[in-house]
């Protein structure tokens, strides 16, 4: 009997690894190898055409933490990621609450609010570059027509960070879907009971929907932070530099929106400083890991769980 059990176990393990083989191969080839090699290279002085590559230990990292420009990049990247995440969550939450119950045309609204998320980020970058233009941009024209502003605002020049953040609002469809999924897990009886007890809309939201949604909000917060910390193309496109076709990545974007990812990429491809660029990217990796761990730890305090009730 026991033998049969262990044979079953062996068979199950075989199946497990057989079906996991493509993933394992991909993981080793395209994640483990580049990451390890990248880290190793970041410990050397490799440049594009260097013949004399030496191991220099953590010198690149020491240089990096003393470089005010890089530190500034990290600061703006973090601020941006936080703004991006919070706005996308608020926007998604508003959308989800509006679409939660039966509203005429619910499916259509859901589709329309979701679909900017499907538009490739590179296209969104170009669209918003034109849209936010000072003198000819549609955004200023509309605001002027509505008499909300009295003079054209140079969004890209004066509010570069805000301009990039505005994409996050437009592309908040993903959090909308997550929160709609979350809201649909809340049993209707809870609302009904609360209504009978005389709870108004805001009370029902803050005492029922919000706590039960908190795991979804938390999940969205962490994954969106990870995603937004990696913003890169927008740095190069959404600014007031004169862009020239082949030169897109040759000149650095303005300092205010020169995010870490863009800086690492620029160091490697624009300046040919392979080792230094990789050390920038690796530092971002570590920072993202640390932030994730901290948030997951903090998450335990803010996320509602059923277990807590039994205290």
């Amino acid at each position, binding site marked *: 009997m026991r033998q049969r059990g262990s044979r079953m176990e062996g068979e199950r393990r075989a199946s497990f690894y057989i079906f996991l083989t493509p993933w394992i191969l991909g993981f080793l080839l395209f994640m483990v190898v580049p990451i390890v090699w990248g880290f190793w290279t970041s410990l050397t002085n490799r440049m594009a055409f260097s013949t004399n590559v030496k191991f220099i230990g953590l010198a690149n990292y020491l240089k990096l933490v003393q470089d005010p420009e890089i530190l500034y990049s990290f600061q703006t990247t973090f601020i941006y990621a936080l703004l991006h995440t919070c706005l996308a969550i608020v926007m998604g939450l508003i959308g989800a609450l509006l679409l939660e119950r039966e509203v005429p045309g619910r499916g259509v609204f859901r589709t329309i609010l*979701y679909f900017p998320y499907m538009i490739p980020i590179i296209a969104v970058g170009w669209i918003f570059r034109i849209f936010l233009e000072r003198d000819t941009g549609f955004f200023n024209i509309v605001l002027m027509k509505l008499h909300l502003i009295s003079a054209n605002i140079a969004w890209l020049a004066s509010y570069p960070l805000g301009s990039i953040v505005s994409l996050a609002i437009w592309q908040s469809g993903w959090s909308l879907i997550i929160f709609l999924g979350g809201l649909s897990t809340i049993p209707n009886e809870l609302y009904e009971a609360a209504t009978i007890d005389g709870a108004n809309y805001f009370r029902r939201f803050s005492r029922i929907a919000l706590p039960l949604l908190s795991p979804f909000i938390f999940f969205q917060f962490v994954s969106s932070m990870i995603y937004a910390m990696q913003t890169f193309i927008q740095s190069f496109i959404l600014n007031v530099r004169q862009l020239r076709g082949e030169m897109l990545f040759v000149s650095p974007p303005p300092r205010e929106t020169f995010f870490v990812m863009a800086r690492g990429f620029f160091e490697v491809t624009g300046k040919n400083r392979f080792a230094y660029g990789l050390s920038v990217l690796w530092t971002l990796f570590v920072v993202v890991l640390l932030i994730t761990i901290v948030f997951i730890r903090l998450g335990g305090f803010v996320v509602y769980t059923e277990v807590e009730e039994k205290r």
Partner: protein
Amino acid sequence: MAVERRTRKAAVTALKLLVLILLVVIFFLPLVSMVVTSLKTRDDLYRIPAIVWPKEPQWLNYITAWTMVRFGKFLLNSIILSVFYALPCIMSSCFAGYAFSRFQVRESRGVFLLVLSTMMIPYMVTVVPLYLLLTRIGLTDKMWLWLLFGMQGAPFLVFLFRQYFSTIPLSFEESARIDGAGRFQIFFYIMFPLVQTAVIIAGIFAFQWSWADFLQPILFLRGEKLPLAVKLAKGYVDQKESILYHIVMAGLLYYTLPIIILFFALQRRFISGLLSGGLKG
């Protein structure tokens, strides 16, 4: 009392509708701006005071966008790369999701956490060293690389497939196993057809990721093999390399159209599939 309640409910619905319509209008503004810009002449672009609607819509821009860069060629490149990436990506994620939902062994949980934790790795930390490595062994400018890139699947899709497979009763496979079907027979003939919705969702995501990807093509491919994502930024320029924004906007419309069509054609199954199977678990 009941009447009062009903009118209040109607008022709330009306208010919600109003806000929603306002949101939709705001959401459409950038797209309107894109379309209008694509119909302007080059002089119109910089005319002050700004014109909202061009006097004579330049429909020719849409032909220019097509002829200026041999658009068909680059469109084909985009399609090839996306399919090359999507197929192995779907397959590998599906395999992995199946493994995690059906073959629980001691280390399954740990491996699953490993899969999910790869989400935390910034993609440039893997792609840039990979580019440097592949250039060293001379493997650049090869479109088939995308077939390999897709092989590791995507953590989100693995999760999605696991959720979908978990909803299928075990008895389906057991009876097949008793009939003597092998593990691949069971997978392809019984399990795979049952997760069609997840395959569609995964397909849209994988296709869209690769279609939208800018970093890998700009690093791994050159000239004739570039996809639209890269070509749009580089192709529509005058002799002085200044970007012709009105043509870029026309090109962008072509570029986003396949994604939009794919999405709207399948959105019903897509969104409800995401809501019902994928996320609730």
